[in-house]
């Protein structure tokens, strides 16, 4: 067993780190803290900051979206923790004195290696480490990863100093400062997941498929009716039969909301609870037809749309409903003159509403700006919800309860 340090020592150095994580928005709990203390007491960190880094990360982080926040906190907190840095430096020097050559070594590299003066290299390393104050990937000078500098790891400089990685003595601060998990943070990803969870509330469970679940009530009933002769009754399991059709307004005033609508789209795509999930496009208001693609080249007449999707399909329109009111109330009022609508837009919207027994409108604009005349017109036809996690939740709940009307 490695030496058992007293836990109070750990607490002295690491407790502020715990609170830093909390103040940074990571939902770490005392329970996780105690787990970490337990891990430290058992020496699972191998008495190195690198070991502590991965131990703490495994315990404190619960989602790849949090990895980047953890790295940020770690780098900020442990930059300049003297005791550890000394230990790490010593390990690097020890290793440098006794380098283990790779099994197969290119003779040319060996020549370069021989030409490197270890003392000079060490001095340079110290100097650069002191100069450097941020993460570094690639490049040919700073200590970091993937570059051709003489210092760092995964690099390509023959005869350089490797830091981090398998050796277990690398500087954890450097690794943390690399912020390798940045691309996973995307606060959007979280939104997608929250929206998916919200959308699952739309599901409607029905009994379909082969009857392979024992229906206890019916079995007792039938058995009693048969005078005690056992009569097993089965029923099909509950499954979601719900289809979802997203109709999305694109172009024009919707452009600023593109990312938000994309998020909703990928959330609906991910939520696997739907028997069928499809999407169509329109611009501002729906007239004779909708479009199967964003380029508006694939036309779907409303009659065709109604044939494809039965009235049980849930229709959710997504748009800002912000336009010239005439586009809803006038014949030939469409913003795109090629539409040549024989009837006012409102008629077509009402046809859609009448076909689908459950429908609603999601508006990416903030609720307080919903007093535009066109929005008021549309709200007379469709119940409108804001395109937020909460809005989608409300929509799902209302649609499940009363068909949205």
């Amino acid at each position, binding site marked *: *067993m490695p030496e058992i340090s007293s836990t109070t020592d750990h607490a002295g150095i690491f407790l502020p780190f715990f609170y830093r994580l909390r103040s940074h928005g990571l939902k770490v*709990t005392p329970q996780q803290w105690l787990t970490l203390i337990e891990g430290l007491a058992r020496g699972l960190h191998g008495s190195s900051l690198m070991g502590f880094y991965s*131990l703490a990360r495994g315990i404190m982080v*619960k*989602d790849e979206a949090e990895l980047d926040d953890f790295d940020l906190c770690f780098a900020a907190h442990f930059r300049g923790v003297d005791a550890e840095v000394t230990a790490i430096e010593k390990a690097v020097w020890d290793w440098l004195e006794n380098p283990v050559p790779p099994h197969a070594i290119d003779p040319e590299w060996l020549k370069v290696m021989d030409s490197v003066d270890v003392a000079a290299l060490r001095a340079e390393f110290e100097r650069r480490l002191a100069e450097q104050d941020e993460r570094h990937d690639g490049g040919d000078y700073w200590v970091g990863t993937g570059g051709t500098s003489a210092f760092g790891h995964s690099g390509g400089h023959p005869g350089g100093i490797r830091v981090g990685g398998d050796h277990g003595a690398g500087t954890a601060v450097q690794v943390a400062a690399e912020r390798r998990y940045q691309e*996973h943070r995307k606060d959007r990803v979280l939104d997608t997941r929250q929206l998916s969870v919200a959308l699952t509330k739309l599901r409607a469970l029905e009994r379909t498929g082969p009857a392979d679940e*024992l229906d206890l009530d019916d079995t007792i009933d039938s058995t009693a009716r048969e005078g005690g002769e056992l009569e097993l009754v089965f029923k099909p399991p509950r499954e979601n039969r719900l289809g979802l059709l997203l109709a999305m307004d694109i172009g024009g005033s919707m452009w600023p909301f593109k990312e938000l609508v994309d998020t909703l789209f990928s959330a609906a795509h991910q939520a696997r609870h739907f028997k069928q999930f499809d999407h169509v496009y329109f611009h501002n208001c729906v007239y004779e037809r909708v479009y199967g693609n964003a380029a508006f080249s694939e036309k779907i007449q409303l009659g065709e749309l109604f044939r494809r999707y039965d009235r049980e399909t849930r229709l959710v329109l997504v748009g800002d409903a912000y336009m010239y009111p005439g586009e809803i109330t006038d014949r030939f009022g469409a913003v795109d003159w090629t539409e040549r609508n024989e009837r006012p837009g409102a008629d077509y919207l009402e046809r859609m509403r009448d076909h689908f027994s459950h429908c609603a409108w999601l508006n990416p604009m903030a609720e307080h700006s919903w007093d535009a005349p066109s929005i008021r017109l549309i709200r007379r036809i469709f119940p409108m919800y804001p395109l937020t996690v909460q809005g989608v939740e409300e929509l799902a709940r209302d649609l499940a309860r009363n068909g949205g009307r």
Partner: protein
Amino acid sequence: MAQDFSRFSGTDSYITSPELRHSVNVAAAIERPLLVRGEPGTGKTLLATAIAEDLGLELITWYVKSTSKAADGLYVYDTVKRLQDSRFGDHDVSDIRQYIQLGPLGRALTSERQVVLLIDEIDKADLEFPNDLLHELDVMEFSVVETGDSHRATHRPVVVITSNAEKELPDPFLRRCIFHFIEFPDEDLMTRIVRVHHPKIGKKLLEQCLARFYWLRKVKGLRKRPSTSELVDWIGALLAAGVQPGQLATEIPFLGALIKKEEDVDAVAKAMSGSSGRWPRDDA
């Protein structure tokens, strides 16, 4: 325990990063489930097999489905069979125990020896599923209501849980796990992984395959990027067909092994014509 620490070191056929090895050992030492996430095809499921092989333990796998219930993992009481048996009086149905079938979790908790338990794709089941497992995973004991028997694990199993992040897992569950995110392997690690599966592959072909593979992963607009397991299969196909290294510069034979969606095939074709046959690295 500390003397057991660092016992998992990867196997001949399963190459790991040092970070992953550390996470496995930490989880085993403090007896928490290891939750593994990462892109599909990065070897989440294989990890449990590798741990079992390396530690010489039996592996019990629980493939979670959308209809899985937490209680079924412990045991299933086959009422239907018992009722049927009782019908003709030719079976003794008084012993309920013969109708209790242990599930994967139940078997792991009652095993005489320590085992590795893999709960695969936990996020496929209902949202409440992980919460229903909390108690059993915490105290490692359960009781069979029908018989009154209670079982307590003599050796805590090493629990590995995989998730594809399809659904958000509940916080109380997450807090009890050691989390590890398997990063997509870089070219060095990937070279080692491919060599394990195809030891005879030529250096040049391997380099070009990897270059093509990483280029493909960078093609814009891909719905599903090819993964490690697909790369290994693809290289297998190339070797079987005797494809020469030079061929990869202008075409991608057996593209279907890497790209599975029709829209993605179109996107790749577009990107290929954009690079007008030049070696993909130039415009990656």
